[in-house]
Structure formats: C-alpha cells, structure tokens
C-alpha cells in the first residue's frame, strides 16, 4: 500500500514539475503572433496555388502583414475579397494587373501535319518521349491535356482541335500549366496585352510552314510594323516586349502571312485558324 502511494507521489511530483516548466516556458518563451494573421489567412482563398510567389496562403498573409506585398498580389481572390483584406489591414489594395496563361502554339489537329499514330500512355509527358504523338511539329502542343489535368481551377479545357483553351475569367496565373507542359509552351502574360505569338518553331520559311499552316515563317513583318523595339526577331521567332506597354492596335499583326502572331482579346482560339490544305497527310506507316 505504501509502495503504491510512493509511486503515485512520484508521478504527481513529475507532473507538477513538468507543468511548472511548461508554465514558465509559456510565460517567457512565448512568440507573439499577430492576431490578424489568422483572420487574413481565413480571408484568402486557401488554395495554396503559389501564384503570388509565396509557398502558400499563410506565407502570403505574413508578407501582407509585414507590408512586403499588397492584397492584390493574390490573383485568385475576387476584387471584393481583396478590398476586404485591404480594409482589414488598413492598407492600399494595390493595382492588380490581371494575368493569364497563354499558349505559344495554335497548331491543332486541323493545322499541324500528322504523320504517325501514337498508341502509348495518354499524356503529353509520355508522348513527348516518342516524337509528339505523331505530330510533325515536335515543338508544338502535343494535345493530350497534361495542362488540363494540372490546372486546379478548371480553367483549361481541350477544344475539338486538340488545343488547350485557357479561360481568362477562371485563370489565376498560378503557373501549374507552365510546369506541366513538356514543350514549355505556356507563358503567364498580362491579360491586357493583346499581341501574342502563337508559335514556337525555331525554323524559318518553308521549313516552318511545311509543318503547320499557322507556323511562324520568320518573315519579320510584325517586327517591322511594330513601333520601336516592341517586337524583335530572335531565333526565327518574334519576341514581344510586354514591359514596354504593348502594342496599341492590331495593325502590328495585320501583315502576318500565316497568322502565327495574333491580336488576342479574351480566350485564345476563338476563331478557327486556317485549315491545312489536303494532300500532305502521310500514310500512317508503311
């Protein structure tokens, strides 16, 4: 009986001693956390998409509190939600430039020449290892929808032509599609920039147009027509300097002989690109 009491006493003593340590630690080693952090985090969408450049929503909330970033840096939140957070913190919401993922390729099934039949794993990553699912242009969109799978916001849908259409309204510019594309065809661009090069072929002239009706043949007319150095030719492709403010009118793309550079308002591929002229389709194999 006495032994039992001793054991119980020791346990109680240990409990009291550790409790005391915890109490002291709580009193003196406490890290003060801004109470607004939890509130701001709750006001953020919680998708942890990374579009703001931070690893997740909580990390972004911390940068908001420290003033390193502005509420509009969250491209997923609606304008109202941004305003609410700005009010909560008493800061300026900041100017949000709506950005979207744009595809630098317009060569769908109807435009790019196809010369082989692909029977492997139905993913761009898989098809990219053995040609491009039979597409003659191995720089262009493979069309098996890895980006559609990667998009957590349901903003990408494959159209009948085998090209991904990014919904400008739904796209949060998180960049998951940029990573998913094995051909690196996506770029996050400001939505108010309308000049878009929809081709990534490093070839010029007939070599390029032999692959696809909407290939850039590197003629350079767009670079000539653009004011200043807005568009420069680099590696047989026009490169648009979006930082310079962009082109004011669709005139810069008007003389493009193939339609590789486009004036895009809203979603891509709203208009059907010119179809391939028949007769170049190779027999499958043999």
């Amino acid at each position, binding site marked *: 009986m006495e032994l039992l009491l001793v054991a119980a006493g020791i346990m109680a003593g240990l409990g009291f001693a550790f409790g005391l340590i915890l109490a002291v630690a709580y009193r003196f080693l406490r890290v003060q956390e801004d109470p607004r952090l939890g509130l701001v985090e709750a006001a953020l969408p919680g998708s942890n998409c990374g579009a703001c450049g931070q690893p997740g929503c909580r990390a972004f909330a911390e940068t908001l509190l420290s003033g390193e970033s502005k509420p509009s840096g969250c491209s997923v939140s609606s304008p109202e939600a941004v305003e609410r957070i700005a009010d909560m913190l008493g800061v300026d919401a900041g100017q949000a430039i709506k950005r979207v993922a744009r595809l630098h390729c317009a060569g769908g099934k109807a435009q790019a020449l196809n*010369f*082989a*039949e692909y*029977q*492997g*794993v139905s*993913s761009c*990553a*898989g098809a*990219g*290892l*053995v*040609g*491009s699912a*039979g*597409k*003659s242009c*191995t720089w262009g969109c493979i069309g098996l929808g890895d980006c559609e*799978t990667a998009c957590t916001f349901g903003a990408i849908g494959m159209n009948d032509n085998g090209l991904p259409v990014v919904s400008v309204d739904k796209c949060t510019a998180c960049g998951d599609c940029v*990573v998913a594309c*094995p051909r690196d065809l996506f770029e996050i661009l400001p939505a108010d920039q309308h000049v878009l090069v929809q081709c990534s072929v490093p*070839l010029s002239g007939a*070599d390029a147009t032999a692959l696809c009706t909407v290939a850039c043949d590197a003629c350079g007319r767009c670079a000539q027509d653009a004011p200043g150095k807005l568009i420069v030719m680099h590696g047989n492709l026009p490169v648009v300097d979006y930082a310079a403010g962009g082109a004011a009118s669709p005139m810069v793309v008007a003389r493009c002989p193939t339609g590789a550079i486009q004036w895009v308002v809203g979603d891509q591929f709203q208009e059907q690109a010119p179809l391939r002229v028949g007769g170049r389709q*190779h027999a499958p*194999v*043999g």
Partner: protein
Amino acid sequence: MASPGAGSGPGTFRHGVHPDGAKEATEHLPVERMPFVERYTVPLAQHLGAPAIPVVQPGQRVQRGQLVARAAAFVSTAHHAPVTGTVVSIGKERYPSGALVEAIVIDADRFDPQMLAPGPAADWRSVSDKDFMALVQGGGIVGMGGAAFPSHVKLSVPEGKGCDQLVINGCECEPFLTCDHRTMVERPDAVLRGVDIAGTRVGCKGAVIGVELNKPDGISSLQAAIERRQARIARGDNDGVSFPIRVHGVQVKYPQGAEKMLIKALFDREVPAGKLPLDLGYVVNNVATMVALAELVDGGSPLIERVVTVSGSAVRRPANLLVPVGTPIRAVLDHCGGLTAQVRQVVMGGPMMGMPVATLDAPVLKGTSGLLAFEEARDPLKEAGPCIKCGQCLEACPYMLNPSRMGRLARAGRVLEMEDWLVMDCVECGACTWVCPSEIPLVHLFRSAKATIRKKKAAEQAAAKKAGGAS
C-alpha cells in the same frame, strides 16, 4: 576479387523474364550487304552528348569514309560519309523519333565503285591514352548494343581506377535480334582482335565473352577462334597480346545483356546502384563494338556501317543486313521485300527496349541493332486495367524495384513521389511491362516520370543558379 567464372555452370541473375526469343527467322541467315541507295542522312547527334560539328559544305564531294563532322566535346563522336557522293545539305532532317534534328544529307555517286580505301594500320599500342581516345573518338566508334554511348568514354580508365576483367557482351537477350549472333558466328577473329586491342589499352588481366546459351554456334565459333589465338600466342604471333580470353555461356533470360546483370552472371558480383562496372574493375563492351574497333585500328575504317536485323511479322523477307549508317529506314525495309499491308508498327532496336519509329524517312543510326515491323499492335482503345497488386512485376524487375507501387503513383499523378521509390534507378528494360497481366504500360510511365523529374531538377538548379548569381 572473385575469380572469373565463379561457379562452373551457366550463371545468371535474380529475377528477369523469359520472352519468346523469336530469333528463328534470322539466326541462320548470313549477313548480306545492303545495296547502296540514292540518298543518305547522317544526324549529327546519334547518342547522348554534344552534337558533332560539320566540317563539310553543301555541294562538296566526299569520299566513302571521309570525315564529315568532328566531335564537339568529350562525350561526342565524329561522323563519316557512308558513301562517296555529294553533300546536298546540312539542316533539319527527321530523326526516327519524328523530331527534326541537324543532319548532313549526302547523295551517293551512282557511278562510283564505292570502294573503301584501306587506310594504314593505326598505331594503337605505343600512343598515349589521350591519342588513343582521339583515335577511337575520331573513328566515330560508339557502343553498338543499342544506346550508342561513345566507346572512347568507356575505354578510358580514370586515374585511381583499374580494369581487372574486360567483359564482352554477346548475350543479345532482346527477342528477334540476331545481329550480334551473326557477328560472333561469322567474324569471331575480328571480335578477338578488338578484344586484344581494347583489353591491352584498358590494362585488363583477362577478358570474358558472355554469350547466352541459345547461341551454341556463336559460342563454338568463338571457342575455335580462341584456340587459333592460343596457337598464335604460342608462336609469338599475336601482336604481343597474351591475356586469356574465355567464352562463358550464360542462361537465356531477359535482360541478361544489361551490363550489371551480365557481371552478376559471370562473376557473381553485384554492381551497387549508382556505381559503374568500372568501380568493381570491369569494363563492358558489345561484340559488334569490338569488330568496329578492330576495323578502325587495322584497316583505318571508321564506323560507317553496321549489321541490322530486319524481322517481325510484317516483314516479307527477314534478314541480317550490313547497312551503311544513314540509309533511310524505308529503303532497308523495301530491300527486305517491303512490308505487308497489315503493318501497324515499326520499331528500331529490340521489341523490349526499342523505340517506335515515327517516320520511315528517318535514317538507320549507329545504334540501330534491329528494324522490326509488326502487324499486331496494342489496341489503342483498350485501356490498361487497374493494378491488381499481383506482384509479378516485383519478381520480374532485375533491379529489385517496385514497379507496381511506382505505376500506381504515376497513374495517380504523384510523379514526384516516384523518386522516393528509386524510379531513377530504373533502366527501362521492360520486364515489368512484359509480365503485367493488366497490361499497364509501366515502362512508358516510368520514362515520362523520369523526364518530368529531370526537368524539375534542371529548373530548380537553374533557379538556384539565378538566385546565387543575384545575391
């Protein structure tokens, strides 16, 4: 160090599979020379490493065997004109995968006898290591088992490492292929001459030729050649080379020809993951590479042609052909009577590890061991079934990986987690895919996962470099 041939019986490795060899169609057919065709395409990059740099101009006349592109880096090899003729263009041409790559196009001179002028025998013995490497690299010699890795890299033994045994791979464990088999039957003395040269240069104590037991004529042919070599050594007439060469039969099992599997079978030693055979004192080379090396050293003849097995259900006249590198695949298949109307797929290499050919206009490469055409192909509409966790792939994988687990991760889109399951150690032999009762294309999933992981790592490295440069 374990004595060569530990265990007297035919060695083998753990796991592996037994696909139907399907070599009957061509294994008894002597190698015949493919007639010259009109146009040849020589891609500047035919293996890992830097593309070669062209040294000829369009319009220039070239002789058969003349250097047309020089090596650009250490892991890079030279290319030579496969025919006498005129350089038509240097530009983007189709690779067998369908990609457009830089290549030299040469039109053959149809009135030229296409004789290869015998060059002087190269001094291979007294030159420095560096000069020997330059000789092999300049001769365009690559491993001819399939991957076409530059041979001079494999034949250079770095400081601090030594070669105990030179291992010559005559397994040819891929079904259908018989090019190495015919090489061993028809040119055993050239194989041994190459072994003499390579073995002396790497400083080995002996050489072992591993041959699967389904090639008894190959083994007996090599054994007869070894006896002739012994007689020459006894006469003091073997160019001063006297290390022992043995032929060792190994069990018929796939992938017996993978170099780590072959070392396990011959010496009962396992090469650890992430290590090379050289770390254990072995240098592994293919039999056909030895012939190419002997021809380069003795005849001054660079690697401009190779033996290709043309077989498969859609080929009218299967054959073993000596084909100039750069010959269009279409011309080779036409020479073999063309393809049947029901052809569904053309594969370059063996059926287990070979790659599908996207266009028949692409050329035969230095690493093309076979051209196989099949009437049967996987029904593209038939979806792979779910993994039933039967574990057959675990028992098939010679590298003791867990293909089932990795396959399920890949299909769930959790590609990056596959690295924890050692997907980067997968050599893509295809044994798991071959046994899978649910017909899951495991190797294809692993290949794409490896590409994705490599891409992510490269992006991270670039980002780290950028951050490091900025700070």
